[in-house]
């Protein structure tokens, strides 16, 4: 029994996670060693804490978490409301809740909670030729929409946006027809001018600057321009670890958080950036393998949600550092400095490993 369970443990996924984190640490050091000490230690402590939590999660059958999905969802909504009332302002947004010295961003955990609640709800209702506007579809949009609006209010556009592909992916894997989903997506895009008015000024500016970074080269466009210069100047082999002039001479803002990929691109060049992309690719490839090996619908849905959670952030983050997508403020999974996000990813990966372990049971 133990032996067969060990056989199911996805070693590659586990090792790749460790490897990505280790590379991340190296670049976190490169990005911060001149600023202040302690970034590295803090991130390591968070990782250790995350791994501990991850072990607990891994030990508990994911079905238990699905059973707790509704209460967790309720609790999450309460916390999101509390953030809006009590939350701490940092960098122009109200995203944080502090407990002593430790602050966290509830929105990060919301992503996982929403995946859980969608999985729980849809997992009990196999899709079988349902119509365009089935009850399930509407309810799923409602379940996602409430936290979405609360998160947009903070505002945390990046996190809110992550919820959309998660919702669509989970619905698609559940069995909703592509036509239906595309129709809804199309309607949403068509209605997006309405959302434009809901955006804060700085978010509007970011999108405008994405379209033309030179519009505001010293303001919002500065980061994009400097990030492109950093990555582009890395060339094939890069300038060497700790030797990136863009990052070391402080031309690149936010380089230890959202723009850490620019440091990788500058210091390790095309080959290094490609290596990192490849590692993420392996991670996602293994995650898909787990999803496919699972015979239970809810396991598959949960795995798909987690895959999209990670993949979307990798893609959007890297794309924005290269200036091919607007700057929406999403961290690079496992690498960007920041506790809440790291913990969320580790928990999600632990859950994924657990799904992988349980495939032979059913």
């Amino acid at each position, binding site marked *: 029994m133990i032996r067969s369970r060990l056989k199911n443990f996805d070693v590659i996924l586990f090792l790749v996670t460790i490897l990505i984190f280790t590379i991340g640490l190296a670049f976190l050091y490169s990005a911060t060693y001149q600023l202040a000490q302690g970034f590295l230690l803090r991130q390591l402590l968070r990782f250790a804490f995350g791994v501990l939590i991850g072990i607990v999660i891994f030990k508990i059958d994911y079905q238990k978490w699905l059973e707790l999905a509704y209460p967790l969802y309720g609790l999450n909504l309460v916390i999101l409301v509390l953030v809006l009332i009590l939350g701490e302002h940092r960098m122009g947004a109200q995203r944080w809740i502090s407990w002593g010295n430790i602050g966290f961003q509830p929105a990060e955990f919301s992503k996982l909670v929403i995946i859980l609640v969608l999985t729980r709800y849809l997992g009990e209702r196999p899709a079988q030729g349902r119509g365009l506007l089935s009850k399930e579809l509407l309810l799923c949009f409602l379940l996602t929409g409430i936290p979405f609006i609360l998160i947009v209010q903070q505002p945390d556009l990046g996190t809110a946006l992550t919820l959309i592909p998660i919702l669509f992916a989970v619905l698609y894997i559940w069995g909703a027809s592509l036509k239906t989903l595309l129709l809804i997506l199309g309607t949403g895009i068509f209605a997006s001018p309405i959302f434009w008015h809901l955006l804060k000024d700085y978010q509007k500016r970011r999108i405008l600057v994405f379209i033309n970074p030179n519009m505001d080269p010293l303001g919002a466009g500065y980061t994009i321009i400097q990030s492109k210069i950093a990555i582009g100047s890395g*060339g094939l082999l890069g300038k060497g670890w700790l030797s990136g002039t863009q990052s070391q001479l402080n031309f690149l803002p936010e380089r230890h958080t959202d723009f850490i990929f620019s440091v990788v691109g500058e210091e390790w060049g095309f080959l290094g950036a490609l290596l990192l992309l490849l590692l993420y690719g392996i991670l996602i*490839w293994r995650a898909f393998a787990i999803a496919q090996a699972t015979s239970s619908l809810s396991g598959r849905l949960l795995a798909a949600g987690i895959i*999209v959670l990670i*993949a979307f952030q990798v893609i959007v983050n890297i794309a924005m550092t290269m200036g091919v997508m607007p700057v929406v403020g999403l961290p690079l999974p496992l690498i960007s400095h920041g506790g809440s996000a790291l913990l969320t990813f580790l928990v999600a990966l632990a859950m994924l490993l657990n799904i992988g372990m349980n495939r032979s049971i059913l």
Partner: protein
Amino acid sequence: MHLKFLRRIIFGCFVLLALSLLRLQIIQGPYFLQLSQNNRIKFVNLAAGRGIIYDRFGKVLANTRSCFNLAIIPQQTKDVQKLIEQISPHLGLSQDELLANFKRNLLAPFIPVVIAQDLPKEKAILLECKEAEIPGLLIQVVPLRDYPYAQSLGHILGYLGRTREKELTQSKDYGLRRQDLVGRSGMEETFDDYLRGEPGGMQVEVNSRGYQVKLLGSKQPQSGGELVLTIWAELQELVDDLLAEEIGACIVLNPQNGEVLSLVSKPSFDPNLFIAALNGKQPESRRVQRLLNSQEAVLLNRAISGMYPPGSIFKIVTACAALENEKITTKTSFFCPGSLRLGGRDFLCWKLDGHGNEDIFSGIRHSCNVFFYNSGLALGADKLTLYAHKFGFGSFTGIELPYQAQGLVPSKAWKLKTYREKWYDGETANFSIGQGYLLATPLQVARMVSAVANGGNLIQPHLVKKIAQQELVVSRKDLGLKKETIKAIKTGMRQVIQTSDGTGHKASIASIEWAGKTATAQAASGVAHGWFVGFYPVEQPEVLVLVFLEHGGSGGEAPARIAKSIMQYVIEQHRGER
């Protein structure tokens, strides 16, 4: 089925990311690498000081001193208005003025903008202490040209100006840059390359705030070469004072070797004005504008660029030619009734009741026109032309100053070519007394007289004594004149000063004997030009003084008196030295 499709979408995105990376890092890599280099590497110019110019006794004529400029680095300054408010009381300049300077000089955010130049040292130190508390403030130390003798040496030294657009393109290969100052007129122009030196620079790695992180490389500026002039600064000042408000020129030189001790052209200008104007000082800028547009042609160096009829001083050439060609001897005399009738016209002597019988000595002494009309007519125009050329008229003197005039020596051929008309005897008569078409610069006249004074050698007047630590040897050309010719002319010239009826008697100095010649040359219009030239000692002269006053009237009056004062000073100083 659905999972595979989702996987395809995600990996499709990954491929797109990889392609974007390929484009950004490989295809556009060199471009972004250049941008990142531009970000981090800044070039800081280090100006080279221009070479110092000394007079013959080691007095500094053109100096390079350190000057303190106040600059603002735009990218380090949050609020320029506020910074200017803070520093304005220390500078004694109005905020509006400082702000205007800032706007005028702003080039790029990382290039310091100079808003006040040449601050007094105490203020500069005071403000330098504030650099730390006022970010963006910078006290620059730059070399600045300084001319201690101000306007008395303006024409010799010249002045500095900004590089012109045309020069930039022409001399790109020589490393001339937009900010560079180049010599305009005078020694500053002639020896511009030599004096300018080699500017240096520092390649500096800067961070995002423009602060220096690392020095990548530096090249120390190379100061320009030094120049020792033949000029005697104190004498130059004295001459400048003596001429005061006059319009004219004065040259003091050594007739043996051509060393110019003093060369003054009036009106003169202070080259320091141009420096101040370049530094953005408003009153000076306006004065420079007035100088450039002045009616009196202040910037014209009359000693080398002004062309005037030499008048009676040219009689020396006529006498020389006539004696050399044996058209006259020391025994020859002509009767002067006050005029000479020629081709139906009366050619007047300046003394209308006539000089009576005049020989070469009294002819020179009295500056009798009729004697020289006759001598000239005996010679013919061709010989006069030949001898004028021989004595250096009509050709550059070789002095190291730009914008020299060549003068004009007429000839029969020249007249035919220019006026399509034959040469008349009357023109020969005029030619022989230095009038008519003949035009010369004061320096050409001084050179001609020097040749007689030193026994028949045409010298090359020059201003440079030492360049690149090398003493300069300047040759002179033996004209092959007979000793008797020289002796006769010198005798006449001594009488000009030493005898009571000499035209230059007002230049006589009690204790010494010297020789000279006056001229009162008719100008095209207005009062005649006054000339006086004299040298001392008569036998082996060491000093020659030439005074020229534009429309200054009789040469025996003001010019003679000024020349006397100069000669007295030179002799006194000479004795003092012994």
